[in-house]
């Protein structure tokens, strides 16, 4: 595929199609709607013969439960929403995690709480990374920072979802969703995920498959959830994604994900020209959080600057990762406001003075 200039939301839709998407179910909500619109348009395109179903549901609840049903057949299924809809979908996600269903949910995060506004925020971080719905479970959380990553993360998402049989969340924001950039789609080979051991349909010659989140036997439920968390433990060791930029000799390391990491990268470039030893650590999976890699950076005298589009949520995971005795400064912007390069630079330089 040649280079195309498109919005992040459109790129994500095409990335899902290129990854082998079979079905999409969703309810429109700004700033995520281009995902649904693109996928509505592409239904019937011979380029994607495996893409069979698009339904605009009557509610977020209906959408997530259609996803549960479709994913139960072993198909590649996706839904997308934004904060208010993400809240409504938590019930379904809780069931899906317990039923071990693989699919992708996208949250193009806008400003909250409540209706908030349509500007970018990263305030769904807690809800995204700590489970979100009732009960004890996690979603895999991927945080794209560019239109190219919006295009390529669905492939990573489906691979993770089917490897671990767990829902995967792509947590974008109004900025990465609406941003237009050049994107080139890599050619992925046709996915072949093993689903015959659990998917429903065609029960001839085998025992029935029962996809269920309920277990009235306490011991059995204890064991089931324990097994899911064993799975999570494996993921925390093997499937953590992050990026380090100029951290080798850095005295100050900015920690940022998503759109903020784009601004932070420019800050690093600008300040490096002035001789400031600053680097960037960018978690690409927010869960599992790249705690070990971050801990390695927490050497004597290092200062961290955590920048987020909220009042301070990822910073709790950063603190847990690096432990006490390390200075972690925080710069937060919320309400749809994104910090400028200058604002972040000032904060880095203030830390440099403290360090010096």
């Amino acid at each position, binding site marked *: 595929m040649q280079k195309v200039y498109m919005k992040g939301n459109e790129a994500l839709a095409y990335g899902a199609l290129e990854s082998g998407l079979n079905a999409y179910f969703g309810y429109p909500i700004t700033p995520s709607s281009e995902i649904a619109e693109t996928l509505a348009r592409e239904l019937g395109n011979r380029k994607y013969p495996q893409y069979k179903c698009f339904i605009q549901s009557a509610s977020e609840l*209906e959408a997530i439960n259609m996803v549960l049903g479709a994913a139960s057949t072993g198909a590649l299924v996706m839904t997308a929403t934004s904060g208010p809809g993400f809240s409504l979908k938590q019930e379904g996600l809780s069931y899906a995690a317990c039923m071990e269903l693989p699919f992708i949910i996208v949250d193009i995060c806008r400003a909250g709480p409540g209706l908030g506004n349509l500007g970018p925020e990263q305030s769904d971080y807690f809800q995204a990374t700590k489970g979100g719905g009732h009960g004890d479970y996690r979603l895999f959380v991927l945080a794209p920072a560019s239109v190219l990553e919006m295009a390529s993360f669905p492939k990573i998402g489906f691979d993770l979802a089917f490897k671990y049989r767990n829902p995967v969340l792509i947590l974008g924001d109004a900025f990465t969703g609406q941003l237009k950039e050049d994107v080139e789609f890599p050619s992925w080979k046709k996915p072949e995920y093993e689903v015959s051991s659990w998917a429903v349909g065609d029960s001839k010659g085998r025992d029935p498959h029962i996809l269920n989140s309920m277990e009235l036997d306490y011991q059995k439920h204890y064991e089931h959830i324990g097994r899911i968390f064993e799975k999570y433990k494996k993921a925390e060791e093997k499937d953590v994604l992050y990026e380090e930029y100029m951290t080798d000799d850095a005295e100050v390391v900015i920690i940022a994900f998503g759109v903020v990491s784009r601004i932070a990268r420019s800050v690093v470039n600008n300040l490096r020209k002035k001789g400031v030893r600053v680097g960037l650590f960018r978690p690409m999976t927010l869960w599992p959080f790249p705690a070990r890699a971050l801990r390695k950076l927490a050497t004597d005298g290092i200062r961290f600057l955590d920048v987020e589009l909220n009042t301070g949520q990822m910073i709790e995971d950063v603190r847990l990762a690096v432990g006490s005795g390390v200075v972690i400064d925080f710069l937060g912007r919320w309400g749809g406001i994104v910090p400028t390069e200058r604002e972040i630079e000032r904060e880095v330089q203030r830390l440099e003075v403290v360090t010096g």
Partner: protein
Amino acid sequence: MTEQSALRVKVGKIRSLTENPTHYCAGCEHGTLTKLIAAAMDDLSIREKTVMIDSVGCSVLAYNYFNCDHIVAAHGRAPAVAAGVKRLRPELIVFTVQGDGDALSIGLSETIYAAKRATPITIFAVNNGIYGMTGGQMASTTLAGQVTTTTPYGRDPATTGTELDASKLIGQIDGAAYVKRASLVVSEISSPRGKVYTIKNLLDAKRSVENAFKVQAKGGFAFVEFLSTCSVNWKMSVLEAKRHVNEQVIKRFPIGLYQDTYGVEKPSPK
């Protein structure tokens, strides 16, 4: 369908049923419906390509009883889950068994939109006028004046509205191909030997189950509402509860055909 096949239900082994005993209370028609559906699955030879969507309420343990694939949905969401399966695998037979709380209160939107989109699925909704599993609270189908744990002085239409007529509601949706209200409750008739029970209603219910599957196979949305008792939560004896349905409930919720686009319903044998 004849009385002979109903007899076979009673004596023959039903492959679509597991060996597990059900948890349903004595006199509850959930067990009857389970048997009727499983027998229909056998008769139509659809067991191996059927996915049942279990709902929340007294029907939640259905996966222990039906020998087919299952997905256990969240409260009210079974039609949406069923639609998800059916859209991806149209050759499968997908059905739900839901209570009135599940299908007609918390999940009414899912029920209506499954019908509105003419989703080829089958919904069996049990109307016993009460929340059974949670211990006898008011349902949307609770009769006016009926005492439940949340209407301890009787259901007051002034504040709670009147009974929801599901078959009438779904029957007027143009996407619904087969909508029927049947009864799972045996009734008394007088005979020269005194009062006896007739399974006329059950034969009609069994025919409705089969028709609902046949309509799905033809590509249509099917909804069957079954009148049923809940003697435990109604605080009645099994016999009193059955009489209550046949004498009172049936007046508010008359048995009948509300939609039959494909004309599958034949006049019932006399």
